[in-house]
């Protein structure tokens, strides 16, 4: 029987080693300040901060969110303080913690992605980049890059050559074939793939006959998208040989373990943080308990362990 403290949980993403596989998803943890009184960041595998662009962005007008069945739609529109202000005002705070800091980046053009990557590469305390080519709530950039394999190849390749940090490419589920996109990212040098971002959706107020979001459409997240995310992780896991980070509706440790069995080396927790600021901690603890109870000494043995044959009844 494996003892809890002997279980190996480290995850390698390019040259970066995370102590464990649990991290918050971009946009659901701010820049890390708001949750510091709730979560011991030293226990997280990494912190993923809100998407950063070269210049500050105001984001979309309100209303920006609406609840849906087992989830929510958001159309924040990449509001952020810009990469310079992040480095100056937010990064010093994050440096005091032992966990890795992953900067989620966004651009309207390939050049902007590269510029943001360059600026962050020179900053002390950023350990990896997550390239958001999948934001559905902006006019330019975002998902426009994430739905065309050739564009994915270009953005990934150029960001890679603008930085020496490990590069994670975050994929959009709003495509017919996720594996083609994932393979493009891998071929262009991505160190890992994270998926999924939100799925485009809508919600209508039947009295005013207007959309419940000022942006008309938004991105669906939460438990509602979990089965889709899980299927996509499984598909991508079978086509690439770089680590896959599973995202989408993960709320409980059991959800996270499902993703790992389907091929996720690590997981990100998004919308669940909005309901329970301690969601990451609860998931981490539960994963460890599962590994102990199942007598799994190394998390790697769980990753992609889905059995294709059903046991005989």
């Amino acid at each position, binding site marked *: 029987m494996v003892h809890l403290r002997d279980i190996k949980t480290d995850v390698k993403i390019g040259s970066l080693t995370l102590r464990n596989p649990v991290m918050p998803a971009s946009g*659901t943890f701010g820049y890390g300040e708001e949750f510091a009184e709730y979560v011991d960041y030293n226990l997280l595998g990494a912190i993923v901060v809100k998407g950063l662009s070269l210049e500050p962005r105001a984001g979309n007008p309100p209303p*920006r969110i609406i*609840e849906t*069945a087992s989830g929510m739609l958001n159309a924040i529109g990449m509001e952020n303080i810009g990469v310079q202000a992040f480095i100056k005002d937010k990064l010093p705070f994050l440096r005091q913690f032992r966990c890795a800091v992953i900067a989620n980046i966004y651009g309207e053009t390939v050049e902007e992605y590269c510029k943001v990557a360059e600026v962050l590469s020179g900053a002390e305390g950023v350990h990896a980049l997550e390239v958001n080519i999948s934001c559905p709530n902006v006019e330019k950039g975002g998902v426009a890059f994430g739905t065309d394999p050739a564009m994915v190849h270009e953005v990934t390749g150029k960001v890679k050559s603008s930085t020496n940090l490990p590069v994670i490419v975050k994929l959009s589920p709003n495509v017919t074939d996720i594996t083609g996109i994932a393979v493009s990212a891998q071929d262009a040098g991505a160190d890992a793939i994270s998926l999924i971002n939100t799925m485009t959706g809508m919600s209508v107020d039947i009295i005013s006959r207007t959309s419940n979001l000022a942006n008309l459409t938004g991105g669906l997240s939460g438990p509602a998208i979990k089965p889709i995310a899980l299927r996509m992780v499984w598909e991508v896991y079978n086509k690439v040989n770089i680590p896959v980070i599973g995202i989408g509706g993960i709320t409980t440790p059991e959800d996270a373990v499902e993703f790992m069995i389907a091929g996720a080396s690590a997981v990100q927790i998004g919308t669940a943080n909005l309901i329970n600021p301690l969601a990451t901690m609860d998931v981490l603890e539960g994963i460890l308990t599962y590994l102990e109870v199942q007598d799994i000494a190394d998390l790697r043995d769980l990753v992609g362990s889905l059995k294709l044959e059903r046991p005989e009844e």
Partner: protein
Amino acid sequence: MPLNKRILTGDVISNREVAEGHFLMAVKLPFAFETPLPGQFIMLRIKGKSEPFLGRPLSVYAFQRRREKVICEVLYRVVGKGTQQFSLLKFGSTVEVLGPLGRSFTIFPSEKDVILIAGGMGIAPMTYVAGHYRGSKAGSKMKMICYTGARSMDDLVALERMEVLCKTKVSTDDGSRGYHGMVTDLFKNDFPTLNIKKTVIYACGPRPMLKALAAILEDQPVICEVSLEERMACGVGVCLGCVTAIKDDRGNKQYKRVCKEGPVFNIKDIMWD
């Protein structure tokens, strides 16, 4: 950084219909729950439910700290799925509470006349402000008036509590009780009689009401803080879902989080359209 915050589990100890469609819920919480400041709110969720999925923001209406526990009261109107589910909670139901959250009203130590203006459920935080002042040494003697308005007599809730705390003037849209018209018009009639340099105004209610108030107070050297509502997901400032347009120092539009930089704002800083 102290690790002292978490989501707390509370027990519903009463949940009573005080007027048609209006409920007063008292929740017993662990001692660790901080004492809310006037204008702060909680995110309330039914434990273990995925529908409604997100918590709902509700202002603190009343609060008591006893020896081993605290009791937090909220006053709410059933308007949709979430509040409908709340109204079905029984004695002993378990709820999840995050809070107290948000920026509170500025409380002045003394020598102010206090005006409270409430529209609809805006009465909830206004009552807590009044109670806070009355519970303090200086505030017990302050001159305080509450203007409260609702659609009709049946929607005027929590009047009794307010009347104990201060002089209360009532308006209804249909004239079924008090002044026939908007609460801001009722207030406007009295406005010329105020010593505005010595007055602080607190208001909470629907956006059109607050906008009407802003028009009355335009260019007047009076302190006025209002509490805004916006849809919320996290309530703690991480999702950027609840923003509202605010003027920055140079008068430019800037989005601020209602849950974090608000819900209380200086009325002069709000951009109405």
